[in-house]
């Protein structure tokens, strides 16, 4: 058994390693330089790398992103952290009108390695302004990479791959994953974009899960194993690009597809995955594809409603069992 780190600790380690490897890496965000760090993901960096490279930024998200863009143009590799993805919405002009299209409009000459970490709140009454996950928005934009790591191992590898890569990248981090512990190598390693992880093999149903839905998916798969249903759990890890081949191969085997996405159902990532497979799958569907997501509603604050709002193991088990009957 190797060394264990939490999801938050893995992010911190990746950041620190990239910063020590390359002077180009700087981090910006509200409160990055206090001892709590951003939920523990930036703690201590300022002592090691100083305030020039660990920059507590004014509460001005659009400017923060444009600043990162300008610094990237000037040879840096800026990492931005948003305590909540919702705050980042102020910066969508910087992202959609500038960052995402910079390479394109430079005629492919200039790359901007800006990395944006967006934390998504869940639970404890975050309510509608602290819990949105707009990964489908980012994935819709050409010119951006989008990842949604579900494990400490991936959190580290994807962050390093992004910080030392050349493309603007948005990493969606589920706040409720931060305390998950796992074996994480000390060395600097990469997790590539567009390569899914098959977390559990199975021949009956392909269950594609994203971010916070991965641990739930695995628990559901274990549950169904007991009644003889073999679920193949695919952790997509990155959304843009995503691993079409892994999903297609799995569906070719199972003939059943369900996508679990921790976001609103309609016009989201789950729909893209189902459609792409529907366009490419040449076999016969044993059951119609399904999506398991949040309802098309903003997030309620009340504990009792949070329970209804977020899909849970029970609901997944039910849906998957229905698919086996169909």
């Amino acid at each position: 058994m190797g060394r264990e780190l939490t999801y938050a600790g893995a992010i911190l380690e990746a950041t620190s390693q990239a910063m020590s490897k390359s002077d180009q890496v700087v981090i910006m965000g509200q409160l990055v330089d206090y001892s709590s760090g951003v939920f523990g993901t930036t703690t201590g960096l300022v002592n090691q790398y100083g305030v020039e490279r660990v920059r507590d930024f004014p509460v001005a998200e659009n400017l923060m992103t444009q600043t990162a863009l300008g610094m990237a143009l000037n040879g840096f590799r800026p990492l931005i952290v948003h305590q909540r993805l919702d705050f980042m919405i102020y910066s969508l002009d910087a992202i959609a009108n500038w960052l995402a299209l910079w390479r394109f409009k430079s005629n492919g000459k200039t790359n901007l390695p800006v990395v944006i970490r967006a934390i998504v709140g869940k639970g404890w009454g975050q309510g509608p302004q602290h819990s949105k996950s707009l990964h489908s928005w980012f994935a819709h934009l050409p010119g951006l990479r989008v990842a949604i790591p579900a494990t400490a191992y991936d959190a580290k590898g994807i962050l390093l791959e992004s910080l030392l890569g050349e493309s603007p990248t948005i990493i969606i981090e589920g706040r409720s994953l931060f305390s998950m512990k796992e074996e994480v190598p000390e060395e600097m390693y990469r997790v590539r974009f567009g390569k899914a992880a098959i977390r559990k093999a199975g021949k009956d149903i392909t269950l594609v899960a994203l971010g916070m839905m991965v641990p739930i998916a695995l628990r559901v798969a274990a549950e169904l194993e007991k009644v003889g249903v073999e679920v193949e759990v695919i952790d997509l890890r990155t959304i843009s690009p995503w691993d079409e081949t892994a999903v297609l191969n799995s569906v070719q085997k199972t003939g059943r597809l369900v996508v679990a996405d921790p976001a609103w159902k309609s016009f989201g990532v789950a729909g893209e995955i189902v459609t792409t497979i529907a366009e490419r799958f040449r076999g016969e569907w044993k059951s119609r594809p399904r999506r398991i997501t949040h309802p098309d509603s903003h997030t309620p604050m009340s504990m009792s409603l949070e329970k209804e709002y977020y899909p849970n193991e029970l609901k997944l088990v039910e849906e998957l069992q229905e698919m086996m009957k169909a």
Partner: protein
Amino acid sequence: MINNEWLSHQTIQSRGDYKEVRAEMVAPEIGFSLWRQMTRLRTVEQALHEEYHPADEMRCPIHFCIGQESIPAALSLLVQASDYLFSHHRSHGYFFAKGSPLKELFAEIYGKETGANGGKAGSQDISHHETRFYSGAILSGAVAIAAGVATGLKIRKSKEISIAGFGEGATDEGAFWETLNYAGKEQLPLLLVCENNRYATYSDQLKRQFNDNISERVKPFGIRSIKVFGNDSPLVYRTIEEGIKSIREGAGPLLVEAYTYRWNSHVGPEDDGKNEYRTSEEMNFWKRNCPIRLLENALKNANQWNQSDIDKAKKIIDQEIAECFRFAKESAFPAGVCWKELNEEDKTPLADQWLAEEQACTFDQNQSDAKLGPY
């Protein structure tokens, strides 16, 4: 007018304890009301703070406002029911200021059906439409919306005004300044109340802004402004009183910057002291110069302190709070909501009344190319 040129978070402490509160600035019944309202708000917040963990039922982030009672108390005596009030995440003081029902605040925090928003919004997004109170957690957004309401009021030539309360942190955002540009240009009936408590979460204003000079910066945008020591409640009262009067009379937008301080952590009951963003000297200074204590002393000096009235008031406050807790705890949790209905209105009464039903129609395929226009 009072001399306030010296005011800034850099200088307040160095001048020593604040000695300038004068009960005579306001009528005795106002002085008493200020004390009562501040004490009421403080007691509410302390009760919530203490119950947070033991109860483990307030399952949402709460930004307590202990130490910052003077602005809400003054507002509570000065706003009219028909005025609009907008708050940021630190909402309880403003909810209170608008006279919105405290029971519904408690129930909302407890996530209950009987809450101001049926448990959908929580502390940082709470609103109460009936009393024209609104809040939201995204910084500076509510200030812009308040300007929108003020635009409507101006079109209607209404005597109502729109008020936005926010911290100095919100002024980092561009959204704040584009609002000021518009409010100044349109001379909107808008009162901007900036509670400058020095910090945005842990970050000092001077880590984020060139200078502690918000009230100065807004002036060339066409916004009148005044800064006050925010813990001097009679002064705050008079300042806002005159301000509101002038706005109602058409003098245009006004920003009141009130220097004050929060005692608790930025959010929640846990101590955030390990982040070492403020000193205990600073904290002690502000606790010594707390708005309630300052007023208490002033009332005593002015012989306006009647212990039996005070005791009576305190008892009523305690009863009220106990009642609020009882209401919140006994209320039911929301359940079985229809998500669709909650997010979308499907009735269209006006359209039903005024619009004819659709008919079939032709379709012209001779689409011309786009033409050049002003881009």
